[in-house]
């Protein structure tokens, strides 16, 4: 998928030097980019494990990524992107060019170099 805009780079502020990291490419399309500074493509770095409830950790998954995007990159109208812990109905998520429903949706464990695309279908006919 060609993209004329330059990528913007971000990383998790809690990342420590020794912790394994997951570099990712995140894309927004179909009007969703308007909520993210009108920037379609972002390169981000997340930790490989994240806190999970009572002191335990879990591998970083898409549910964490959605929450991270909401907290760090989303500029306005969070209700147009998230619905609870997942994305709002009407947003198609592709993981490495495949529908996230084939990958376990929010439970998909992120791997270095993954490309996650969020496409809004809400702009109608």
């Amino acid at each position, binding site marked *: *998928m*060609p993209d004329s805009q330059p990528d913007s780079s971000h990383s998790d502020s809690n990342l420590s030097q020794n912790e394994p990291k997951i570099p990712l490419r995140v894309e927004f*399309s*179909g*009007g969703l980019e*308007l909520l993210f500074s009108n920037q379609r493509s972002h390169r981000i770095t997340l930790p490989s494990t994240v806190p999970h409830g009572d002191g335990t950790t879990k591998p970083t998954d898409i549910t964490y990524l959605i929450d991270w995007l909401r907290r760090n990159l989303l500029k306005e*109208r969070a209700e*147009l992107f998230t619905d609870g812990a997942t994305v709002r*109905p*009407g947003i*198609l998520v*592709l993981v490495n*060019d*495949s*529908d996230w*429903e*084939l990958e376990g*949706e929010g439970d998909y464990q992120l791997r270095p170099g993954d490309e996650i*695309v969020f*496409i*809004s*279908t*809400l*702009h*109608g*006919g």
Partner: protein
Amino acid sequence: MPRKSKFDKSKTCIKCKTARGNIVIRHAVYCKTCFTPLVVTKYKRCLDPHINAAPDGQRRSTLKASGNLLIGLSGGLGSTVLLDITSRCYFSTKSSTEDGRKGGKAHPKNDRVWKQASVCFVDTSRAFSEGVTKDRSEDIRAMVEQHKEFEFIVLRLEDAFDISWWKQLGGYVPSSDIRANLANEDLVITEAHLQSSDPVASLRSYLSSLPTATAVRSSINTLARLLLLHTARSMQCSHLLLGTSLTSLSISLINSIAQGGGFNVLEESFEEWTPQIARSAQDASSDSPHLAGGVCTVRVVRPLRDIGMKECAAWAWWNGLQVVGKDRTFDPDGKQTIGGLTKDFIVGLERDYPSTVSTIARTCAKLAPKNEPDGQCIVCERPAQRGIQDWKSRISIRSLEPPSPHPPHVASDDPPPISLTPHLCYACHTTLISRSSRSTVQNGAEASLAPLPVWTRSALVESDAADVMGTKRLVDHEDMRNAIGEFLLHD
């Protein structure tokens, strides 16, 4: 409890049965390679049977439209995908050998289906006060210019109130300004000397006279639809294509039925529009090939009506299409309308129960109105049901008007007031008068006189039936309470 899988069997494509799947469409898995022909097949299956003027039956003959083509482009996902697929399937500039067509360049089979094709965008930015929505016509022009085969036309929503635009299309222009009083259900018409009014001011005045936010949204859609249809007729178009996907069709079906448009449920998915007979009389002499019986007919086809929003989004992404988008998504008022609420409901339904959305469209396709239509509504120009006012008078509490000072055999000196109501369909009448507790305008005499779209004014003047206002009136809540006051039990 583990969640139920969103797809039926394996992650392998159910079509080629070899490649790993890329998308789940209503529980079925398809790979990227099989996805493209799947979408194109669905598209052509919806459009091809409506291209030739006369149906072929079982025989598959050459596709040849009787007029030109107009594509309605809103800049949204559906119409962007529609433009792309239409360009690929019917206007590809590949040579006959390149794309495998037989018969050589000159073979009639390889002629263009439509001689000319145009893309029309209706800008609605001036419907609201400055700064609420921005004019996206230049963004959309840049998108359309990538397709050299299409001419680009920009219409403004205020053209619906612009006499000069109507004159250009050959429409009849009344010599007086006609306005309707939306304060009561009779919608009494008043005439004034025609002044050179500003179309933008007229549009805003019309929209601000409407009783609810739902009515405003619904009227904007109706105005845009009629602008496209009249433009299509003026350009000798036999077909108007709209980018309504399966999801947006289901939304518009439920939305329309909820607003009283059940009689026109079939027109939501496919429509053969004929302008008011009186206005098209001048067309009767024309020898244009798509005029049947002297009347110009435009077929409104929605070729994406079997393709869901998810498939459209995947098509747009995988083919690198830039969706300009609609500002409506970020318009907070849209959420308070029946359309906005219906959209939220259907989109949520599609995520949780993806097959149910297609069931809505398939079920509505089986519906048929019980009675024959009785002419056209002069606002939306769709078939209107017979005897609506009689039916309404039976289901609501009414009282007789006070007796006339004149005996019945003595005519009054004053001409009877002309009412818009008998010329409207149920849905348009309800849109214009139905108030809720959150009405956007005041009741009673405070409501201003609303200007009317040019085609409605034209049809009103040409109509021979200057109907006399009905003698019954709807009883308001206070009168109703007074009438039954003595029977009410006190707390």
